C-alpha cells in the first residue's frame, strides 16, 4: 500500500503544480468538454495547456501502455489519480470516442503497428474519432448492416450510409463496420475498418432530434476509400477481414457497461435532495408538510423505492465483480432497468414541473431545458441496444430460455 500512497502524493503534487487554476472548477457539462481533433478550438489557453501537460504525462489515457501514449498505470493507480483529480476539482483534460471505444478495441484486437500508429494521436487529442455502426435498416439487428466495402487490390472502396454517428461532423477519422463479404452469413462478412474522413467520398449531415439539435449525424460513403495500409504495416482493418463482428460485439458490451455503470442520472435522482423535495419546492405542500399533490406524491415515493434499490444494485454488482462473482450479462439488466427508470424519472419531473416546464423557448426555462432532457431520455432505451434487445439477452444468457 505504501507504494500506492507514494504514487498518490506524487500525483497530487504534480496536479497541484500543473493543473491551471481555470481547469479546477470541476465543470463537467457537455459545453466544457475538451474533445480535441483537427477542428478543435480550445476554449481557453488553460484548456490547451492542461491537455498538453496531461498528454505529455500520458494521463489523458492513464491506463494505456506508455509506448502508445498512455500513462502505464495500474488499475489501482488510475483509481487514485481519478480520486486526486476529483479532490482538486480538475476537469477531465480530454474525452473522445477514440479514448472510450477505438482505444479499447485496438488494444484488444489491433496489431502492434496499428497501436503505435493510431493510439498516440488519440492520447494527445490530435485526432478525433467517431463511430460508424448503425444503418437505417440495421438498428437492433446491427449485424444486418449493408455498407459495402470492396477489395480493390491496393485499397478498399466503401459505399453506403451510417446513422447515429455522434459528432461525425466534427471528427477526423471514423471506425466503421462494413460488409466485406456479401455472400457470407450475416455475422461472417463484416469487417472493422478505419477511414480518414478528410476525403471527397465521405460526407456528414447532422440529425435533429425531437429534443432539438444533437451530436448525431448521418454519414455517407460515396466511393470513399481507405488504403490497404495507412502506413507500412498498418492495416486499415482491425482484426481479421470478415471477423469484424467480434470487435463489434466486444465494443457493444463495453458500451453497455459504460452506460449501465455510469448511470449518473439515477444517482442524482437519489441524492440528498430527491425528487420529493424538488416537487415540494415546485408544487408546494399541504398543511402537515406532505406534497400538495397526493397522487404525484405516491408516484414519487414508488419511484424512489425503485431508484434506490437500483442504485444499491449498481453498488452490489460492482462489489460482486470485485469479488470475482456475478454474471456478465447483468450489464444488460442494468442497462435495461437504468434507462427505463430514467425515462420514468423524467416523466415525473415533467409532471411536477407542470406548465412552467412546458415552454420550449425563452430564458425562463433556458429554452425548455427540462423538457428537452425529458425528450432526450426517450432515446436511452433505444441507443446502445434497445430495452427489447437487453431483455432478449437476459432471457437467453441468464435465464437460458429456449429459442431466445
Amino acid at each position, binding site marked *: 500500500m505504501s507504494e500506492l500512497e507514494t504514487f498518490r502524493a506524487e500525483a497530487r503534487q504534480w496536479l497541484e503544480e500543473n493543473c491551471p487554476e481555470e481547469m479546477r472548477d470541476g465543470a463537467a457539462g457537455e459545453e466544457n468538454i475538451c474533445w480535441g481533433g483537427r477542428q478543435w478550438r480550445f476554449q481557453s489557453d488553460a484548456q490547451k495547456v492542461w491537455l498538453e501537460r496531461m498528454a505529455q504525462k500520458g494521463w489523458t489515457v492513464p491506463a494505456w501502455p506508455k509506448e502508445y501514449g498512455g500513462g502505464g498505470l495500474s488499475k489501482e493507480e488510475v483509481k487514485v489519480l481519478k480520486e486526486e483529480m476529483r479532490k482538486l476539482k480538475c476537469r477531465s483534460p480530454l474525452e473522445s470516442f477514440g479514448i472510450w471505444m477505438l482505444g479499447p478495441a485496438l488494444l484488444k484486437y489491433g496489431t502492434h503497428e496499428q497501436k503505435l500508429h493510431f493510439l498516440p494521436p488519440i492520447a494527445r487529442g490530435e485526432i478525433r474519432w467517431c463511430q460508424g455502426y*448503425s444503418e*437505417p*435498416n440495421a*438498428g*437492433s*439487428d446491427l449485424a*444486418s448492416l449493408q455498407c459495402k466495402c470492396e477489395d480493390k487490390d491496393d485499397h478498399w472502396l466503401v459505399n453506403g450510409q451510417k*446513422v*447515429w454517428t455522434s459528432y461525425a461532423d466534427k471528427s477526423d477519422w471514423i471506425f466503421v463496420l462494413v460488409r466485406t463479404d456479401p455472400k457470407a452469413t450475416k455475422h461472417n462478412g463484416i469487417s472493422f475498418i478505419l477511414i480518414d474522413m478528410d476525403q471527397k467520398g465521405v460526407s456528414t449531415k447532422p*440529425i*435533429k*432530434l*425531437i429534443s*432539438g439539435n444533437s451530436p448525431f449525424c448521418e454519414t455517407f460513403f460515396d466511393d470513399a476509400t481507405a488504403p490497404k495500409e495507412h502506413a507500412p504495416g498498418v492495416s486499415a482493418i482491425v482484426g481479421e477481414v470478415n471477423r469484424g463482428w467480434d470487435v463489434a460485439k466486444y465494443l457493444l458490451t463495453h458500451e453497455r457497461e459504460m452506460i449501465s455503470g455510469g448511470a449518473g442520472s439515477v444517482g442524482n435522482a437519489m441524492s440528498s435532495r430527491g425528487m420529493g423535495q424538488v416537487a415540494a419546492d*415546485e*408544487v408546494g405542500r399541504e398543511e402537515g408538510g406532505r406534497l400538495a*399533490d*397526493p*397522487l*404525484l406524491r405516491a*408516484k414519487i415515493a414508488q419511484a424512489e423505492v425503485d431508484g434506490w434499490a437500483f442504485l444499491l444494485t449498481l453498488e452490489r454488482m460492482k462489489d460482486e465483480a470485485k469479488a470475482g462473482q456475478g454474471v456478465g450479462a447483468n450489464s444488460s439488466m442494468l442497462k435495461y432497468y437504468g434507462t427505463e427508470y430514467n*425515462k420514468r424519472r423524467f*416523466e415525473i419531473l*415533467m*409532471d411536477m*414541473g*407542470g*406548465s*412552467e*416546464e*412546458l*415552454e*420550449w*423557448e*425563452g430564458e425562463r426555462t433556458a429554452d*425548455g431545458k427540462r*423538457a428537452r432532457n425529458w*425528450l432526450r431520455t*426517450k*432515446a436511452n*432505451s*433505444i*441507443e446502445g441496444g*434497445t*430495452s*427489447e434487445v437487453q*431483455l432478449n439477452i437476459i432471457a437467453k444468457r441468464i435465464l437460458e430460455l429456449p429459442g431466445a
Partner: protein
Amino acid sequence: MSLVLTEEQEMLRDAAHGFLERNAPVSALRKLRDENNPDGFSRDLWKEMAEMGWAGILVGETHGGADFGFVGAGVLAEEMGRTLTASPFLSTSILAATAFNKVANDAQKQENLPKIAGGEALYALAVDEARKHGPAKTAMQAEKHGNGFKLSGDKTFVADGHVADKIIVAARSAGSAGEQDGLTLFLVDAKAKGVSVERTQMVDSRNAARIRFDGVEATGEDVIGEVDGGYMALEGVLNAGRAGLSAEMSGSAQQAFAMTVTYLKERKQFGTEIGTFQALQHRAAHLYSEIELVKSAVLKALQELDANYGMAGPICSLAKAKAGEVAKLASQEAVQMHGGIGMTDEYDIGFFMKRIRVAQEMFGDGSFHADRLAQMRGY
C-alpha cells in the same frame, strides 16, 4: 343514451377526417413551427373551418351556429387530434362558446356568440396562475372600484392568449386563494389598458400566453355570471375543455398507435417484420385495449355534457385522467417501437408525444383528476 355516434355525428366525423387530412396534416404544424409563424395557426384555415360551421359547432342556430352539441365538438377535436391541427378551436369554440352559452346573459350572448360562429373574434380563458392546475387556487384580485372592478394579477398557460381578442378571466372578488367562494368571471378586451400579453411557445409548437393584468378596469357589464359565485360556472366551462382535450388526446393516441402498428408491419429486423415479435404484439394489444377504454370514457363525457351539463364533472375527470395517461403511454410506446427513427425530428411521432404532454397537463393532469374523483367519491 346509446354509446355510439348518431348518423349525423358520423357524417361530421368523416367530413372532418377528409378535410383535415387534406388541409391540416401534421406537416402543416411542422411548417408553422419552422417558419416561426407569429400566430401559431393558419387564419385562412380557421376561416374555412368557420365556414364549415366548426367555429360555431356549439353555438345555437339563432346565433348563427351549427348547434351540434358537445359530442359534435368532441368529434372535431378528436379528428384534430389525429392530425395535430393547430387552431383556436379549443379556446374559442369550446371554452368561450360554453362560457357564453351556459353562463352569460342575453346581451353577452348576442354580442359574442355570432362572432364565435363567424370566426370573427378569438377568445381565451385565463385561469391558472401556477405551474399546476387548480381553479380554487386563484389569487388574482378583482378589487371593487366604484361601480366596477380593478383587476390585478398574473395568469399563465393561457391557450391562444397571444392571439385572443377577448379574454375570459377568473379573478377573486372575495375570499382568499384556496377557497371556491369569491371567484368572478370577467370578459376583458385584450387591448384594454393594463393588459400585457407575453406569447409563450410551448413544447408542442402551439402557443399560450402569460398575461399580466395591472389594474385593468372592468364594469358590471363585463362580469359573466354572478359576482363571487363564479366557481361552479368556471368548473362547467373547464369540464367542457377537459372533455374537448380528452377527445383530442384520444385522436392523437389513436393516430400514434396506428402509425406504430403500420411500422410494426413494415419494419424488418432479424429477417422478419418486427410485428411478428410476440413481446411487441402483446404490448400493442394491451395498448389497443387501453385506447378502447379511452374512446368509451370520452364519448360518455361528451354525451353527459350534452345531457346533464351540471352533473358532468366526474365523468369529465374520468375522461381526462384516462385519456391523458393512455395517450402518454401510446406516445411512449410509439417512440420506443419506432426505435431511432422515432427520435428524429424529421419523423412525425415526436409531435404527438409533445402535444399529448401539453394537452394532458392543461386543466389538470391524471393525478389531479384521479384525486378529484377520489374526493367526489368520498375517500
